[in-house]
């Protein structure tokens, strides 16, 4: 497992409103280098809040987050933006691609913000688009490509700057089953070949079964954790059992 990329200690998040609501209630978690972890849990359990806290989008109420030994919440806005685009890669359920840009420009966006030399940019672009098999999409506009293609483009954008941690929030939520397979295979190969650590939130047991380890969150707390052995089918069954126990996922059976 080696050193940890991400270390979360006693993470808490409260939403203060008419009724104060505790979304996260003390979570401790460690993500090792080159680990692929899925986060599962019923709706409203706090899994997305957890990911948002880690991805520096949503400031936690208490607790500490260290990414590569650095606390992103101690940075100012500009440093934080820089930190995000150097250390983190994001894949979202709704792709989050910029419609006014072409596919190629979308992928290059994090690099242009850092004003990388042009030849270096294109070198990386060629490499990543070959790796993800999206070369023929490059000159297209976003509205011209399908959902599965959009997610592949989003993945390319998330890894082009070689982040140490890739965060994914329901990356297959908007895709059909064929595209789900394609996208998840990509995640696997990013994990094995690019050696990037991945933290992924999903409610789909099939998608989760691609990970090495799954943590379950319930009512803002860490509920259970299961590791994958050599057999993915068996792992899938284990996930289903845990979910049945959790009580949130039965309807998906």
């Amino acid at each position, binding site marked *: 497992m080696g050193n940890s990329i991400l270390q979360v200690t006693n993470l808490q998040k409260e939403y203060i409103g008419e009724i104060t609501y505790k979304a996260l209630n003390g979570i401790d978690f460690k993500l090792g280098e080159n680990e692929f972890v899925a986060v599962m849990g019923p709706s409203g359990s706090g899994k997305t809040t957890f990911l948002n806290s880690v991805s520096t989008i949503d400031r936690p109420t208490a607790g500490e987050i260290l990414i590569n030994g650095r606390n992103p919440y101690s940075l100012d806005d500009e440093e*934080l*933006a820089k930190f995000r685009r150097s250390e983190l890669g994001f894949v*979202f359920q709704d792709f989050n*691609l910029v419609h006014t*840009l072409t596919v190629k420009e979308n992928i290059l*966006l994090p690099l*242009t*913000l850092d004003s990388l030399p042009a030849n270096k*940019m294109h070198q990386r672009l060629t490499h990543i688009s070959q790796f993800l098999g999206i070369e023929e999409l490059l000159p297209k506009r976003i509205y011209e490509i399908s959902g599965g293609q959009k997610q592949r483009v989003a993945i390319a*954008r998330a890894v082009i700057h070689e982040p140490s941690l890739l965060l994914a929030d329901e990356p297959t939520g908007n895709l059909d089953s064929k595209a789900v397979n394609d996208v998840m295979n990509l995640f696997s190969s990013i994990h094995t070949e690019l050696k990037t650590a991945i933290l992924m939130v999903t409610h789909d047991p099939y998608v989760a079964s691609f990970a090495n380890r799954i943590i379950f969150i319930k009512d803002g707390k860490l509920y259970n954790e299961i590791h994958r052995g050599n057999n993915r089918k068996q792992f899938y069954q284990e996930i289903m059992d845990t979910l049945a126990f959790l009580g949130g996922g039965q309807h998906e059976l």
Partner: protein
Amino acid sequence: MSFNHIVVQNILRDKWTYVSYFLSSMFSIIIFFLFTVIAFHPSLNSMDPGSTLGISLMLASMLVYLFSFIFIAYSIMAFLKKKTKTLGIFMITGASMKQIRTLVFRENILIGVMAIIAAIILGLVITPLFLMGAKAVLKAETFGMYIPIKAIVLTVGLFLVLFVVISKIMTRFINKEASIQLLKSDIVIEKSINSHYLLLIISITISTTLSYLLKIDHEIVVSFGILYYIVFFASILSTIYLIISQGMCFLLKIFEKSPAYMRKTNMLLASNLNAKMKSHANMLFLITILISGVFLCTSILFSSYYNVAKDSEANYPYSFQYIADPKADASMVKADVEYLEKQLSTVDSQKYFIEFKSNEDKRLGYMSVSNYNLLKNQTVSLNNNEFIAVAGNHKLAPITNIDEDHYLKHLKLASVDERNLLSTGFQQTYFIVPDLLYNSIDYPVYKTYIFELDNWTTHTELARKITEDLPTISQQRYVASKIDLYDSELFVKSVMFFIGSMLSLIFLSAAMSILYFYLQTTLLQEKEKYLGIRKLGLSKKELFTVVSKELAILIFVPFAIAITMLFVTLFAMRTMVSTTFLKVSLMSSVCFFILFFVSYLFIRKNYFKRLLSN
């Protein structure tokens, strides 16, 4: 739950969309109201509606009304566009087109009525302040507060009609297909502008040719008359539009190929401009036209205001000029001159007592060279066979054809003086002749008493009293005063100046609120887009850079185009306009730049804040 309930709730639950529409409607109504308050002011009752002042007030009110019409129509359009998706949801749930139209119509009328009421109330609050300002600018003595019933009735009536008409027309524009389309996907992809460089060149060529013909006053211009100006105007408009749209298209293409494109936030900026090229071009065009209107208005009106003193002097060269008719009663003249001297004893003045003889049938004056020298403070000598022709009218050259003249036909023209000698139009031309010859001329003698004051523009009170006490009596005395002329001209010009500033204020704020509306309609889309990019790692500062640049283009490009057009026009007309005109234009441009810059900062801050808010 009745239909009207939905109408009201639809407004209340979405107040911010309505607020900007409400505010811009209210604003135009207030302006119109204030105009009518002035126009119907009791102290202007005595004013002749056919006078320059009456006509310009009428015209200005009409212009404001017409402008409100266009402006409110535009606001409704923008507003409808923003609401298209909501309307689409209504349609999908089964509302008929008729119901949708009724809904939109009632909403607009409701907002319109509220805007009228708010504008009248707010207008009444501002009125005393406004009248005080008007009083100061117009230098009027009585311009007090009054209850402007007429103005209220007129404003309410006219704007009710306006809202009913506009709402009825606008509901026809609700597009069913577009609304439902918008439901399926939030993103509307705009068609980009095709390059039409040939069209651009043709258009520029036509416009330049037309303006050149206008400049050299070619006979084509005269023979086509008003039609020529319409064609000229249309061609200028289309050229401006083509320059903006094609220029944008061309510059973006170049920019995309440059290495700077992949630097920092440039790509985001360029793609924003690219994706909204057509609507941006329309916006730029609209703002350019509005600003050009402002510049034209102010340049013309300000300069006429500043030239009052000079124009008065050109028409009536002296502070007081008293000409006694040959048939006048000598004792009256004596008393009048004594009165004048007494009145002017307290101020610094020069006196000139001169005379000239007049051929009354042809209205030609003869003056001795010594009198001429006295009047002009100079020493010109004439040979016995020479004479000088001096203008008797402002802007009319003196007559030099003297073949018929009994006294002058053997003389030679020494020089021509085109500045009129005495008050304009009293004689056609004055011939300055050697003293000896003057004495031999057998025409009636006009004794002339001239008083010239130092700092003459400050003595308006004195001039008013003197011209009141010594009115011109035909066949007896002719009294003219440049101070008095200045005084009355200044009032008219002040009113014009006042109207001009109000109009430019309206145009300017219209330009800004149109821009504001425009930003509002795309705010949601932009917000979503930037939220996504922010997650990837775009700092607030970088976002600020992109927004700043985009807004700067929307605001300062029209400004630059309008300024360029203004100065090209001024340069082409440089022989016709005075340097004061140029100076004033330059000054007002600087003022406008400051105004623009302030509104830029304001809009930017506001927009940025709303982009980041949740």
